[in-house]
């Protein structure tokens, strides 16, 4: 009965628009941080750009949405947390972060191979009155704690409650659609239960064009990517032997440098 919720992101469809980033921030009550930069920003969903390294007419680019990969095996952040503020939920596979237990040591941020965790450098603040627009299902965090994508578990809760009210034990997956999945205009992000062999996302994850980032380090992420372009698939594990570094720069675009 336990599920493994995961995603398959079709990189051939992602246009890098950023709708998923906005929808995620809105759903999770992430404060707008006009004082932040690309280094200190709070973006549980972040779209990065990578290229094939060539210039001129031969250049190709791809946009890669990155969020918590919800690693299943030896989950790095779970292993290092001194507070046990994060755990892999047995029933859903979601890596659940409890910001209220976090003491802000940021060890998990160092441990995460995907740079998918973000620190609240400032207290969340909204312009006066804007608190009325906060999503009721999601609690605010305070400064000094780490947060990350939580697979829109508030929507999972709503789906569970709806199922319970109707007397059902299993949720209807149509009721549990994370914000980024709902927002994507090309349908690039697909969501489903990877434990269910009949689930559409589960089938796509098993297709030959599907891959995971840094699969060789063995964290078993539940977010898969998919592309028919070989150079895109090669980005996940640098062919030349060194780990591709994604440089975040203060201004300009992030580029994947091949070693």
């Amino acid at each position, binding site marked *: 009965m336990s599920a493994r919720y995961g995603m398959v992101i079709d990189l051939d469809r992602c246009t890098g628009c950023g709708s998923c*980033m906005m929808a995620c921030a809105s759903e999770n009550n992430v404060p*707008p941080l006009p004082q932040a930069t690309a280094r200190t920003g709070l973006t549980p969903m972040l779209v990065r750009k990578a290229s094939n390294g060539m210039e001129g007419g031969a250049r190709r680019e791809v946009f890669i949405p990155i969020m918590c990969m919800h690693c299943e095996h030896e989950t790095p952040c779970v292993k290092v947390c001194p507070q046990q503020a994060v755990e892999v939920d047995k029933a859903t596979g979601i890596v659940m972060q409890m910001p209220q237990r976090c003491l802000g040591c940021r060890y998990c941020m160092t441990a995460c191979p995907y740079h998918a965790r973000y620190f609240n450098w400032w207290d969340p603040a909204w*312009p006066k009155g804007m608190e009325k627009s*906060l*999503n009721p299902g999601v609690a605010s965090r305070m400064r000094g704690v780490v947060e990350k994508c939580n697979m829109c578990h508030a929507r999972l809760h709503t789906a569970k409650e709806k199922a319970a009210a109707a007397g059902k034990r299993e949720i209807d997956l149509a009721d549990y659609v994370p914000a980024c999945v709902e927002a994507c*205009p*090309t349908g690039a992000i697909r969501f489903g239960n990877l434990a269910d062999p009949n689930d559409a996302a589960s089938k796509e994850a098993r297709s030959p064009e599907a891959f995971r980032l840094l699969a060789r380090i063995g964290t078993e992420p539940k977010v898969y990517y998919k592309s028919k372009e070989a150079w895109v698939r090669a980005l996940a594990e640098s062919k030349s032997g060194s780990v591709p570094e994604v440089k975040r720069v203060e201004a300009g675009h*992030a580029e994947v440098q091949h070693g």
Partner: protein
Amino acid sequence: MKVSRRDLLVWSAGAAAGLIVTPVPWKLLDDTSIWSQNWPWIPQPTRGPVEMKQSVCTLCPQGCGMRVRMAAGWPVGVAGVSSHPVSRGALCPLGFGAHQLNWHPQRLKTVRHRGGASAWGDAQAAFAKACKEGPVVVIDGYPGRAASSMLESFAQKHDGGYRVVLSAETRALTPYEKWSGVPASALGYDLENAKTIVSFGAPLLDGWGAPGRFTRLWAERAAGMNDPQLRLIQVDESLSRTASRAWQWVPVRASAESALAAGVARVLLEERLVAWRGPMPSLTLAEAAERTGLSADAIRDLARTIVARTPAVAIGNGIDPEIAALNVVLGAAATPGGIVRRSKRGAAYVPADAAMPSVRAALIDASVPWDFAPQTDAEVFRFAAWDGGSSRADWLLPAPGFLEELMDVPTAPTLAAETYAIAPSLTKPPAEVQSAAQFLGGIDPSLTPVDKIIHSRCGNLFHARAGTLIGREATPVAKIASAQALEEQLQKGAVWVGEAARPGGWRCELKEWPAAASGPPENLTATWSAPVLPPLATKLYQESSLREMPARRNA
């Protein structure tokens, strides 16, 4: 009995030992930890029942269907409407933060006159005086609405002009006005039936038309396919987002799109790859190759590729007569899969940036993009819900903000059929705001108000017995029981879609090859017309390196 220091120490030790077996230290620990996690300055969401309401985003003329989650009467989240025929469930990235706009720190709350605070009474008096003293021009950024009809009626009654800021996508269709007599706002692109689309710099997958209009079509028919049903050829100076995902990217030198269009047209005509016969572009193939940076062979290949799968249509970025002429050559003008006439409207709008005659005052509606500056010394009455900064308007008048007023949604730019929808207001506007239409209605009570115009438009739609109402299901209008029922459905989020344009219905005559385009290309990703960006846009522009802040010229 003398109390010594030792007594005090022993007593304290006893007290400490005693305290340990009381709740004091344990409860205090527990309570202070709770206290330290509940700082009063950290805002918490409202508790209350959540309901879903449906409306239409009115922040730009595309009119995307929008589902809004409301809690305690305030919008707390937005999502698209998958059954919506225009947006097909998508919203633009900025739309996802739109529900927070009404609290933007730059929200206009009071009337401002030349930098100082003023009042509605003064503004009304000044405007009424201006109307008596000379002609008044009214500028509308979102033509076709019921409010637009009020603005237009007022302008006509007061000898002024009614001018319109057309969306960039519609402006690109203006060359056809001269060749066919049909106004640009009556034309649309029948992309649903096209097999090849050549975009000359138009960001079809990133800001052109409604967010879901082309992206969904492309996702269904081209994304990730080796031999797509819809071939997207993107002509772009650098690898834009659309070029990155296109079936073919044709890199050209900056501002050479026109030259490429002329070169392609020349090849099509010289090699008789098309049925059309007519004037040849003056540019030779060698000249086109020189200007674009492509070889003559590359241009020939491109021409052949374009007509390999027809219908083929060209889409330009900005007003480019040569690209429009290419469409005529391709046979895309007035045929399915190309440019079609969707409405019977005969009169062209006067563009707002055309030369302005001398007027006494200009009234600018809140829908006009913030960086539009009228070329006039007249007294400017500028309506806006937010202060975008650096305005040179004499009067800044606070207008209703996001989903704060009832609006209707006319046919979106670029569509091949007419559409109509209603965007109900979901929150009450603050007391101090008034829309331009309401303002004019106050000055001239003979003008029909917006809600009555909408009501009569619904009546007209019903009596015409044409088209389909698309809500949860699609119902032909002929099967709807009454005008009232039609209006109710529209209020609940249904969209009326007119019949698909019949082939023919208008004809394009190209007597001579047009001169090249003048003026810079449009920056479509920056045509968000609200004066301010939603607060969460910092995620895209500052907290990540995904996008560069759009360059905005302030009025």
